[in-house]
């Protein structure tokens, strides 16, 4: 292939005159790509999996301290670098003398578990309804779309609080609740895609060839919207992490002795007036970091999977 005219044109206009130095190219590639997000999320998974080895006071260790038990004589100790801090409590202790770092580390397990499971549940519900609504149309479409409308009429967090009042709050019920609350976005977006896919030739040929509707939806439509569904799911990850933290913060999410980040923030309110900032600052930073990483990854993924956007 002869590409020389393009190159010479480029040279003529000086477009290739300055190739950035190697380190700069590597840096832009790393910063522009998903590496930092993947690093943070990978770190989260690592910490969640190896919490028993990383935490200063594991659940089943010989220590009197576990994430759920502390000693009152150690309550409200500031981080170790502060004047009153003790070296054995790196990020300080809370109102019951529990080690903050230990609770943060075990909290990553809850956040990860709930977020991934809730995104899966809402994704499966939303994708299934989106495909059904888009492909079958008619009254099914009517029902699903009116359902998403009435879902839209309730702010998501309000809806989640209501549902949490119905069932007993625990981790898996929170997953179901968030799944039920957040499926509408998948259904709306994917329905739109299915509507355009179903006019394509290969779908029509499949109909002519005598495929059942179920088979068309499963083998011809599904793979073609899988990309969008995964992008939506990544973008939704951060939303779900915040929603779980909000519910736990209000006391209708993960129940209290468990070290969920939202629960820790709720505990932190007691020490706020006396200036015990470490109770509230660290769990919040963890949430922000994870949500930031998830949404950046989702944004990158969206652009990467859609070449039309990549040019922008």
């Amino acid at each position, binding site marked *: 292939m002869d590409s020389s005219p393009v190159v010479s044109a480029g040279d003529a206009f000086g477009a290739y005159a300055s190739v950035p130095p190697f380190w700069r190219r590597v840096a832009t590639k790393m910063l522009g790509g998903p590496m930092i997000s993947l690093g943070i999320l990978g770190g989260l998974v690592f910490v969640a999996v190896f919490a028993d080895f990383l935490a200063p006071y594991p659940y089943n260790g010989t220590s009197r301290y576990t994430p759920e038990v502390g000693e009152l004589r150690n309550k409200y100790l500031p981080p170790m670098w502060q004047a009153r801090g003790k070296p054995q409590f790196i990020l300080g202790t809370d109102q019951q003398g529990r080690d903050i770092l230990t609770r943060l580390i075990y909290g990553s397990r809850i956040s990860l578990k709930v977020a991934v499971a809730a995104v899966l549940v809402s994704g499966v519900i939303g994708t299934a309804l989106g495909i059904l609504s888009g492909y079958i149309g008619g009254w099914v479409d009517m029902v699903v779309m*009116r*359902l998403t*409308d*009435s879902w*839209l*009429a*309730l*702010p*998501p*967090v*309000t809806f989640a*609080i*209501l*549902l949490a*009042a*119905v069932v007993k709050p625990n981790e898996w019920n929170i997953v179901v609740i968030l799944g039920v609350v957040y499926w509408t976005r998948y259904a709306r977006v994917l329905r739109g895609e299915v509507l355009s896919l179903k006019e394509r030739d290969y779908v029509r040929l499949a109909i002519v060839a005598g495929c059942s509707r179920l088979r068309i939806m499963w083998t011809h439509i599904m793979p073609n919207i899988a990309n969008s569904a995964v992008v939506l799911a990544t973008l939704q990850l*951060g939303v779900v992490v*915040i929603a779980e*933290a*909000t519910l736990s*913060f*209000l006391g209708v999410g993960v129940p209290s002795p468990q070290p969920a980040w939202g629960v820790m*923030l709720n505990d*932190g*309110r007691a020490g*706020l*007036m006396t*200036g015990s*900032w470490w109770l*509230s*600052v660290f769990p*919040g930073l963890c*949430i*922000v970091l994870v*949500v*930031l990483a998830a*949404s*950046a990854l989702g944004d990158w993924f969206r652009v990467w999977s859609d070449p039309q956007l990549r040019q*922008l």
Partner: protein
Amino acid sequence: MQRYILTRLFYAFISLMLLSVTIFVMIRITGDPVVLMADPGAKEEDLQALRKELGLDRTYVEQYVIFITKLARGDFGKSFMYRIPVFELYMQRLPASIQLAGAAMAISIILGIPLGIFAAVRVNTWLDSFCNVFGNLGLATPSFWLGIMLMLVFAVNLQWLPVQGSGTLKHIIMPAVALGLVFTAANMRLARSAMLEVLGSEYIKLARIKGLTEGLVILKHAFKNAIIPVLTFACINFALIMNGSVVVESIFAWPGIGRLLYEGISSRDFPVVQATVILGGVMIIFVNLLVDLLYAYIDPRIRYGQ
């Protein structure tokens, strides 16, 4: 157009009916309010009498029919706890919610739109990068945590602002900022992308070719078109903040609708929950409809119902 409006109104009606059934059943599954209302040692026949008084001894279907026929006459029933008409209660709380939502909206528009426009005009500069970072951070920060951080800095450490409560201008600052930041970030991103799209269009090229100054091109030609999606988005957000700021309202002890709903849920005050959810739903659905119609009115290229 008329046909389109009628169809949309019909859909809105169906959605609201669905919502009313959902909320009616859901709030009843949460448990028996009588247990919470009666004295601890109350006898079973007292509880039964109280149930009868509140109309809870009937079947769900009967209760719903009574509820919906009353609703059709504009009667939301009486609160179980406060023993006054729910609508009155709602109207007492509404001004606080409007104030808070208005202040949060004002912050998000005054900060968000200019930032987004600057970012688009100076695309790929440090200002754009700053806005990008700010936007991502703003969207990733839970509003209740931001509220706590503000409280820590401005109320506990610096003691410039009151911790909780309402009444003065000083009280509204922290909750409004906590609620407004997410929407500032969202408005900024939307304004930036809308502006970028407009700046790439043919009529902007024409305006530049005919020799207009850059300021005039941006303010007069580009801004007007870029602002439409941002403002419509802001309208929908207003309705959402009015009804969905439960957490921030409860942190700052702000006597708004969100808290009324939250109290209603925890005390199983069925009429209060039903009324707040349905009125909120009406607000959100109609703002959505209104925005779509306004959109078509402002932008002649959009026509519905063909």
